[in-house]
């Protein structure tokens, strides 16, 4: 009769032991040493990003007697709104064109041509190998002469600018979309849609696009940030109204305004990204939780 309680006590002890072991694992994972290292890395990272912004901010408010004069002048300057508006518009068109090219390509490569993946990856990396200045010279040489004289008109030049930005967006957009496709079972979802009667257009639009929405949003972030800050291609294609050339021109003539413009554009770009992230949030939660199951 005495064996029962003894075994029970031992069993309870064993359970406690397991729980303690679990707790110690948790403590080890979140231990003070690990936490301190994480904080140090975080602080170094934060300093690296924030100090230049603070420096720029202090520089922008050195105008006297009114410290906000540079901001007032910038916001009153019609070229600022035009430049930023133009670059955002180009950015949006670039994102749309890039998505139309990249999503079906990355989807098809994953579904039917997995052997071509290294080739496509290499092609999308070309913008890192070919500098923008070389790209824009190539475009000008090809499209300033017959039979495709595109640089002679506003529309033609805008077209070339978007085309060049689409190429610049490839490495970011392809990787983002491809990672998104890797997270879903592309093949089975496609086959499920096909068995239900869907054609390719519906599969892409109703099934694939919505399920890689988060990936598309991150690709779009990067593309927008690149386009808004790009200088070389816009300048050589005489798109001086674009934000990059405007900022550069301002820097040559004014001491404090470029700093104010940088901060305002930085804030607006983050705001735009925040809006995109906000609209994409619901989809991300759904897809990720579904994936975890």
């Amino acid at each position: 009769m005495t064996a029962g309680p003894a075994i029970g006590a031992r069993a309870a002890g064993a359970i406690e032991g397991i729980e303690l072991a679990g707790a110690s694992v948790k403590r080890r994972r979140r231990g003070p040493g690990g936490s301190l290292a994480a904080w140090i890395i975080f602080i170094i990272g934060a300093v690296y990003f924030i100090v230049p912004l603070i420096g720029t901010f202090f520089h922008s408010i050195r105008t006297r007697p009114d410290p906000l004069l540079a901001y007032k002048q910038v916001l009153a300057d019609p070229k600022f709104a035009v430049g930023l508006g133009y670059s955002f518009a180009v950015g949006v068109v670039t994102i749309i064109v890039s998505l139309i090219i990249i999503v079906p390509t990355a989807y098809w490569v994953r579904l039917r041509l997995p052997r071509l993946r290294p080739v496509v990856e290499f092609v999308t990396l070309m913008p890192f190998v070919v500098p923008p200045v070389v790209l824009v010279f190539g475009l000008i040489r090809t499209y300033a002469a017959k039979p495709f004289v595109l640089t002679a008109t506003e529309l033609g030049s805008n077209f070339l600018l978007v085309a060049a930005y689409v190429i610049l967006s490839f490495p970011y957009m392809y990787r983002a979309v491809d990672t998104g496709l890797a997270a879903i079972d592309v093949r089975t979802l496609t086959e499920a849609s096909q068995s239900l009667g869907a054609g390719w257009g519906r599969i892409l639009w109703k099934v694939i696009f919505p399920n890689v929405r988060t990936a598309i949003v991150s690709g779009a972030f990067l593309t927008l940030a690149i386009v808004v800050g790009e200088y070389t291609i816009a300048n050589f294609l005489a798109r001086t109204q674009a934000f990059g050339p405007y900022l550069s021109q301002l820097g040559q003539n004014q001491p404090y305004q470029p700093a104010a413009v940088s901060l305002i554009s930085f804030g607006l770009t983050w705001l735009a990204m925040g809006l995109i992230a906000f609209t994409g949030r619901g989809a991300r939660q759904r897809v990720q939780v579904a994936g975890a199951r």
Partner: protein
Amino acid sequence: MSYLELTDVQKRFGDVAAVADFNLKAERGEFVSFLGPSGCGKTTTLRMIAGFEQPTAGTIVLDGVDITNRPPNRRNVGMVFQSYALFPNMTVADNIGFGLAVRKRPSSEIKTRVGELLELINLPDKGGRYPYQLSGGQQQRIALARALAFEPSVLLLDEPLSALDAKIRVALRLEIRQIQRRLGITTVYVTHDQEEALSLSDRVVVMSEGRMEQVGTPFEIYNFPATPFVASFVGTLNLLPASIVDAGRGELTVAGQPVRVAKRFEGGGGRSVSVALRPEMVSLGNADGMNNVTGKVTDVSFLGSIVRIRVTLAEGAVVSLDEFNEPTLKLPSVDDTITINFPADGPLVIDRAASVESVEALIAEA
């Protein structure tokens, strides 16, 4: 003409024949299972019916129409996948209604039909949920409803229960069969689980290495296996080396001990054959009018409702037998020498010279 006919269907991937000479005629409303180990070609055959794979040769006719070269979205075939494959971005109702939306049915009709199907699968209040909010069993029921919503000509299920827990698997298995019977839909079901195939199907196609080994009712497949592979793959089977004494009188020897077999077999005296014997045919003890053989107990395993005892008659001749687990059961101990018995109509003589080796190799592969 049968409702679904596969004639001389072949599928090759390079030099490898994934499916060879597949012939099947399924009647309207029939439930047919493809049963076999991994890589036997069962899923490839199903995928050819669905249109996801193109046959290298042969034809597939559904309801009198040759669909061999039709794209999958124009075959009107409902498919349920092992991984559910529900669209994560859509609610349960949108998932079920997807096939109807593709067919441009009015939204009121889609809503009514989705409601009917949710009732059919006993999830009437889950229409507004997303797939991730449901359990695996619920997700697979939604996938079944989605595949049935547009009233397909044939329902294909590719190992639909493999990803589920044992209990849910059995419950959902019954539910699938009930729904199939109620709707009378022709169904092709792929599984590697013999219990699933035997319990669900009107007919079972046992496959191995891309070939059909046997087509028959579950009763035929289990009780009259046509090949050593079927005998070994379906159910637990004792395969014992034997030697024919007199085929005409049904006499042979197993491990040197005389055995009488009621089922007819052929072969001259002294010829080596294999005897296949189900564990449930064998009992402990000596019995009049039965085949009585003696051997040494090598293992006694408690399996819940039954106890499995292994008795070695001679080297290479081991008989497994099952006894129901009753409180009064007196179990032998390991190393005891005991007599076991089985009726004359229990064993099946498999007329293949190298059958033991080939079956063992097949079992090892499976």
